[in-house]
């Protein structure tokens, strides 16, 4: 019995890092809008954002499969632009993960922005700071706990993803064979030894990440007021 192929582990980390980065970038303006808009569309957008929390991953995966397939307008456009398929590819997995993990980024950020409130924005404006300046130098530091929570939850949730990957990504080594799929495959082929090792790696890694986060929160609490 040898050590299992660690390729799926690195692929998973790669996927989680890409997904988290993209989600922080696009989740920030979305969460900001939700936190401050007086618009009536807010409830609808909030509901859509929260859908991945309640939908079975297979449902989300099924629709993604339909919309990303080369036969669909989006998938077709992608094929004509890049020559690659979105389905059963790493890029497709990233898109799927971004949608799947969206609420885990947006909800903590929205909560953090709401907690920061408008008062510091007004203070910044009267100190000659432009809105963008105020955002990066006041709001982001004050919302740092929200960013930490969003990053960790998104990263962890992406690592634990299974159903959507199975539907959209399949099981292509180096492309879409993430750790959860690899464990599933080991179990299917009654290779419990490798399943044990990969599972243990995932368990320890997840624990260490959470431990780090809680320790950071303890050592560098965000002082409010």
């Amino acid at each position, binding site marked *: 019995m040898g050590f299992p192929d660690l390729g799926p582990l690195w692929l998973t980390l790669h996927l989680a890092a890409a997904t988290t980065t993209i989600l922080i970038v696009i989740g920030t303006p979305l969460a900001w809008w939700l936190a401050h808009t007086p618009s009536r569309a807010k409830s609808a957008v909030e509901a859509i954002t929260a859908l991945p929390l309640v939908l079975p991953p297979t449902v989300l995966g099924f629709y993604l499969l339909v919309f990303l397939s080369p036969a669909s307008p989006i998938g077709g456009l992608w094929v004509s632009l890049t020559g690659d398929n979105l389905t059963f590819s790493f890029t497709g997995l990233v898109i799927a993960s971004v949608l799947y993990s969206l609420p885990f980024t947006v909800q903590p950020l929205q909560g953090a922005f709401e907690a920061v409130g408008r008062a510091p924005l007004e203070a910044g404006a009267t100190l000659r700071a432009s*809105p963008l300046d105020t955002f990066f130098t006041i709001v982001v530091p004050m919302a740092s706990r929200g960013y930490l929570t969003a990053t960790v939850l998104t990263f962890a949730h992406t690592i634990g993803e299974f159903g959507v990957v199975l539907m959209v990504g399949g099981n292509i080594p180096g492309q879409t064979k993430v750790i959860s799929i690899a464990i599933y495959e080991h179990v299917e082929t009654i290779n419990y030894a490798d399943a044990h090792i990969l599972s243990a790696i995932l368990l320890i890694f997840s624990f260490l990440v959470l431990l780090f986060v809680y320790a950071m929160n303890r050592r560098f609490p965000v002082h409010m007021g």
Partner: protein
Amino acid sequence: MTELIVDARIAYPNFELDVSHRFGMDGITALFGPSGGGKSTLLRIIAGLEGKAGGRIAFGGEAWLDAGNRIFMPPHRRGVGYVFQDARLFPHLSVEGNLRYAARRSVGIDNRVEMDDVVAALDLRPLLSRRTGALSGGERQRVAIGRTLLTRPRLLLMDEPLAALDVQRKAEILPYIERLPDRFGVPVIYVTHSIDEVARLAQRMVVLAAGKIVADGPVTEVLERLDLQPATGRFEAGVILTAQVVGHDAGFRLTRLDHHGQPIDMPMVDLPIGSGIRFRVRARDVALATVRPTGISVRNILSGTISRIEEEPDTAYAETLVDIGGAKLRARITRAAVADLALAPGTPVFALVKSVAFDRRALVSPAVTVPPES
């Protein structure tokens, strides 16, 4: 002199503000009135924090707001400093970090405000390394004032900066605020509902009630007006006198003042002989007599003549204005007394003021910038 011309309005479901005024941009102008009268709203409109305001605002010929022409200068480009009632220090920065935040964004703006000056003027040196969360209320406001000064503002707006502090802390901070215009050359608009603070700090005042300006002018003149009861509150009514220190009585702990030839005694104040002093006399602390009383504990008996009487219908009270030479005193007495003593404009009277009535440090200030007495 630069002027701030405001002709602005804003409407909320339960409140409407419509104000037209030219603010002189020197010294401290108090924006005074009852709570809910629109003082803070007007200040926020001037700063650009109320996006829905209509009308026009111009500062020294520069348009800050011209709703008709869709001009709205965002707050961060107006060059106004704003001291909020709740300080609004940034919790993720130290005191020094808060100050530097402002200083970094005002580099290159021509103004005489320097970090060392501000730190010295507000005694911030011992606080610099502290976290903002560990500051007392008074310290927070001092830091907030310092931070605002370091933006090198063209106009300093202060929104009830002392409202959240107790009497002791107020007394600590008032001298700092008082010196701002002279020391840093910045005009101040100061919102307050405390007549004590108006009397102490301001040269001019604008009285705002129910979203409208009901009076404006030099503080001494506005406070002499008898028709502002609803806006100023009857127990707050009073006038400001300016007098000279002519002697101290160390034994009885009294300071003797000269007010246009008439002596006034007040509990001892720590000012050298010859210096000017500004203090407030509340209308309800003044009694009137038609003959000079003797055998009475009241120390201050000022002779004058009645110049106005305003009886308040359906109440026991009457407000009178007494010319004591060089200034006017307000006296709040009963309508019965007016009738008994046959008081009328022109009646010579003696105004009686207990020295004890002056025993409120917050009311007393050295007359640094004395407006000419009418």
